[in-house]
Each structure stands twice: as C-alpha cells, then as structure tokens.
C-alpha cells in the first residue's frame, strides 16, 4: 500500500513539475515566445512601416519554428498537446539547432551522464559514510581531527573549482588525462580493452569532481554515529555479547543513517544541475553538455526536453531511494506517516 501511494505521489509531482515548467516557459511575460516575437517585430519595424497582417502571420510562423509554440493557440490547448505528445508518444518536439527530435538527442547522451553522475554520487556517498563511521569510532583521535578539517575544507571549495584545477594540473600540464571528449577517437566502440581504457580515462576527472561534490555527509554521519553510540541499547547489545562488527553495522550504522537520508535525496536532485556545469568544463558530450549548448543557442524545445528528462530521472532516483529505504528502516514499509523525511 505504501509503495502504491509513493509511486502515485511521484507521478503527481511529475505532472505538477511539468505544469510549472510549462507555465514558466509559456505563460510568464517575456518568456521565449515573447522574446522571439519582439525581436522579429523589431526587425520588421526597422525595414518599414508597422507590420501588416501577412507579416504578423509570418512572424507568428517564425516564432513557432523557433520555439515550437504556436503563439496564436491558447495556452491550455498547447499545454494539452504538449502533455499528450510527451505521455503518449514520448515526443518532446524537435531541436531547432540540430533539426532532430529532442528525445533522440537526449536519449543518446543520457547513458554517459548517468555513468558519470551515478559513479560520482555512489562513490562520494559510500566513502563519506565510511569515513564518518571511522571518525566516530575514533572520536577525538588525530584521524578524527584531521578528517574533520578535510571535510570542512571540502565544503568551502566548490566542485567546479576542483574540476578546473584538476583539468589544469592533470590534463594541461601533466597530460595524464585527456581534456575533453568521452572516448578515445582511435578505438572502436565495443567490449575491447583500448576502448574501455579510453572511456575510463575520459571519465576519471569528471567522476573525481562529482565525487568531491557529493562528499558532504561525513561530518553529519559522524555526529549521528556518536549520538547513537551513547544510547542505552548499544550497551545492552554489548552486554548480550553481540559481536562488534554486527553492532557497528546493524545497530549504530543503520540507525545513524536515517537522518542522513534527506541529504542523499537532495544529492540525487542536485547531480543533474551540477552535471551541466561539470560536463561543460570537461567538454564531456552528455546530457549536461547538450543542455549547455542548447542554452547557448537558445534552442528552447531542447532546453525544455532536457529539463523534463532531468526531472524524470531525479524523480526515479528519489523513488528508488525511497522504496529501498524500507530495507534500512522497517517502519517505513508499514506506511507509517513519517514526520521528517
């Protein structure tokens, strides 16, 4: 029952998000339609007198090709059509700049983005949880103090600065890693060693930066572990002779993880935004890079499509996190109303 409710909620959120985006894109003043229209009007005004009805019609037609929106159509009809195309036909419109369907462009780029961001996020989360636990178990030691400083410093440095610096050091100066692209152009795609090495080499620096971007939970997890270790049931468990490892993982770790959960969720929501910045810096042709180029070319249908895909992926990620959360916290699967998630 909980799962059904949760999935339903995600679908609802998706439609609300879609509507909000559509409204931003379409209904607010000086959105893309108005911008393009004003520009075209100005040009026609320069050439001569006020636009005749035919000229208006041609302007509207040009607006339509530029933004994928017919300005003469009322918004609710275009909203309905947009929704219908996406839900029924997975049709996000056509890219103006590339002249191909938006869905195809994004679908090609998506796996590469997922590859980088999921590796980065998974690595960052795992390592920061492990470090947090280690710090808690060695509370007050030199390791604890040192790692606290490292975690603090990490949170003052934005990930893109790490990206830029690692690019300058490892790629421009030492030339250990390539500075752009996602695979070695001299290799053939497939399951052969040179190709895989090329892919790994190209992904190394972006994954490193994504790893550093998602390396935030260590201090919070440390605090939770320490608090959990002071609880009475841990002492009882020790007295009952339960092994250290089991206490550390099943008792302390599991309970300390619960409050961190929000952070992990928000991490999922933020990776796609940061991928736009990262992939652009590394010239890594995936979702973020495509989106950035679309932004620069004012390719509005592609921007909309990319944003919707980002939202869908985020929702799926959060949904998976939420559904597997029952494994960590058995209370959830009973459908209890959690106060804070």
């Amino acid at each position: 029952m909980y799962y059904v409710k949760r999935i339903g909620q995600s679908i609802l959120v998706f439609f609300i998000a879609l509507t909000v985006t559509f409204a931003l894109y379409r209904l607010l003043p000086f959105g893309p339609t108005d911008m393009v229209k004003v520009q075209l009007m100005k040009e026609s005004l320069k050439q001569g007198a006020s636009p005749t009805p035919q000229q208006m019609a041609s302007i509207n037609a040009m607006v339509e090709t530029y933004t994928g929106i017919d300005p003469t159509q009322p918004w609710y009809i275009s909203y309905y059509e947009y929704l219908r195309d996406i839900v029924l036909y997975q049709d996000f419109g056509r890219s103006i700049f590339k002249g191909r369907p938006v869905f195809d462009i994004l679908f090609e780029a998506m796996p590469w983005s997922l590859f980088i961001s999921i590796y980065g996020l998974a690595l960052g989360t795992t390592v920061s949880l492990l470090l947090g636990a280690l710090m808690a178990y060695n509370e007050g030691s030199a390791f604890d103090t040192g790692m606290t400083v490292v975690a603090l410093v990490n949170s003052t440095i934005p990930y893109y600065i790490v990206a830029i610096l690692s690019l300058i050091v490892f790629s421009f100066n030492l030339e250990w890693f390539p500075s752009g692209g996602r695979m070695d152009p001299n290799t053939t795609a497939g399951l052969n060693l040179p190709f895989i090495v090329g892919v790994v080499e190209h992904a190394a620096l972006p994954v490193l930066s994504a790893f550093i971007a998602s390396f935030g939970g260590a201090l919070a997890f440390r605090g939770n572990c320490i608090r959990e270790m002071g609880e009475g049931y841990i002492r009882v468990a020790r007295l009952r002779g339960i092994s250290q490892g089991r206490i550390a993982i099943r008792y302390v770790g599991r309970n300390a993880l619960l409050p961190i959960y929000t952070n992990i969720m928000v991490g999922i929501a933020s990776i796609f935004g940061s991928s736009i910045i990262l992939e652009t810096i590394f010239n890594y042709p995936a979702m973020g890079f495509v989106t950035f180029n679309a932004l620069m070319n004012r390719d509005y249908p592609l921007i909309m499509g990319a944003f919707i895909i980002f939202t869908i992926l985020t929702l799926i990620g959060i949904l998976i996190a939420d559904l597997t959360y029952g494994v960590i916290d058995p209370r959830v699967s009973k459908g209890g109303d959690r106060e804070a998630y």
Partner: protein
Amino acid sequence: MKPTDGADGGEPRPDGGTNNPDGPGPIDEATLFTQLSDVPEPTAAERLSEWFNRHVYAPGVVFFSDWRAVTGAVILTGFLLMGTVGVYVVPEPRVMEGPIFVMPFTNWDYPLGTGVMGKSILGQVVHATPAMLKMIAAGALLSVSLGTVIGTVAGYRGGLSDSILMTVTDVVLTIPGLALVIVLASIYQPEDPFIVGLILGIDNWPRLARTIRSQVLSIREEAFTESSRIMGLSELTILRKDLISNLMPYISVNFANSSRKVIFESVGLYFLSILPFTTLNWGVMMNEAYNGANLTRPEELHWLLIPMVLIILVSLGFILLAQGLDRVFNVRLRARHENASRSETDGGERA
C-alpha cells in the same frame, strides 16, 4: 503539596508568598487568581541590565569565546568593507592601466597583479564585491524567509494548510534545482544582481522548510508552548516568541549555508557565461582568465587563482560564522553563560 485553602497563619505557601493572619484575611476564590505576589517590580534599570545580559552580554561572551565565530565574522566584515568602503578607495580597473601579467605581490601599484589586458586584479576583485553582496543578500533572505515562514506555518497549523504547503515543498524539492535555475537564468537573462540572487534563492528553501517544520512539530508539544496557549496569547506571539526563538539556530545556520550556495552557483553560472555579463563578478573574472590565460604557464595562473581563493575565503567565512552562531543561539549553552555572568564565575566553555 499542601492545599492552599488549608493554609493557616504565617506558614509559607509553596508559591513563595505568605498568608499573614493579620493581613487581608483568608484568601477567597476570587482573590486566589487575581492576587499578585509580594515580589517587587523590577525597576527600569534592572530590566535594562537583564535585557542587556540576556541579549547582548551572554551571546557576546559565547560569540567571542568561539574562535570560529570570530574568524568567520572577521573574514565577512573584511568583504563587507571591501564592497562598501573599498570601492571608493581602490580605483576602478581600466584596460591597459598597467603592464601585462604582473605577478601578484611584486609591483605595489598592482598588489594582486594584472591580467592579459593589463587591468589591476585588485581593482576588479574589489569592484565586483558590491554585486556579489547584493546577490547574496537577496538570495539568502529569500530562501531563509520563505523556508522559515512555510515551515513554521505548516508545522504549527497542521491539517490542510500543512498538506498543501508540504506538497508544494516536495515538488520544489524534487525538481532538480540548479537545472531549473540555469534554465530560468538563460530564458530571462537577469541583469540586476538582486534578481539574480532571487532566482538563485529559489532552490534553497524547501530543505529549510522541511527541517523547520519537523522542529516546530516537536516544539509545539513542549510544555512552554502549551502554557502560552492556555494563557491565551495570540497565535502570532506564540509563533514569534516560542517558536522562532527556538528555531534561530537553524535559521542562522541556514542563512550562512544558503549564502554560500548562492555564491557557488552564481560564480559557476557566470563562469560558464550562462548569466549575462553585465557587472564585474568573480565568475566573470574566472571566465576571462580561463579563456584568456595560457593555463600551462604558471606565471599567468594567478589571474585565475585569485578569484578562486576569494570564493573559498568567503565560503570559509560563512561556514565558520554558521558554526559559531550555532553555539551562540544554542539555548542551553547561553543559559549557562547567563547564569555564569550573574554569579561572577567564569563560564569558560570548551566542547
């Protein structure tokens, strides 16, 4: 506890007053609830000193005993001065005012060196600060006030307003925030730093609203909130006095955190030139340096590194200040100091 109506002569009552048999006589039902105790009204001076102790002295002691708070405050004050006074002291940078690629700390006409256009980097840095400050102020204020208001109202009122507000919060929380900000920024091309700040503030508030709501849910069940309600204080007073004052640690910490996020995001977006270049900005400087300098030559790198160092310094300031403020607003800690300041013992606090 002894029943009050059975009180006989001279015996101290548990509430601190005395029943004097020669006095106004036995207490009847009416005076029981209206009679005031004999405790003297504090004079205006006493009240002032009490207020001073509670609101200035005790927080001040905690604040200045914490090196993180002091360091953070010093760093941020430095930036504030740079953005207000510094703009008048340091001349505005001009193209070719000095030689190309002066290394920092070598020529004192250009303390931080120059870039490829011969513009003083110090001048650029200083003249970029006011816009950065405006952006931070707008973004952090928007996200903190929105988060606080939505969180408290949802938590305190509950019911329908709670579920509506939390649905909205969840929607914004699940929309990829930075991606939305980037899309908005590129569609509307904001130029005013305040508006840039507001757009960047959009994706910061839902988390705060969620945390604050869960805090409010537990605070409103506490005894002191309950008693305020029974005393018939207005909802607004309860919200302000009981809830917001207890939430101040979260609010201050989040103010610092969202300021840091606004800096990070704005610099990133200016660096990628997604936001239009209108004013000087550290991100714009980084963009120009990244594209203009030969990045394999160490003697040109300072152009790129100096804005980076500034960003790191500012966010360090905000983080340290947030951690320090966390202690200042920590009610338990402050209460200990307040007592200490009265009994003249040193409340030195090392956690």
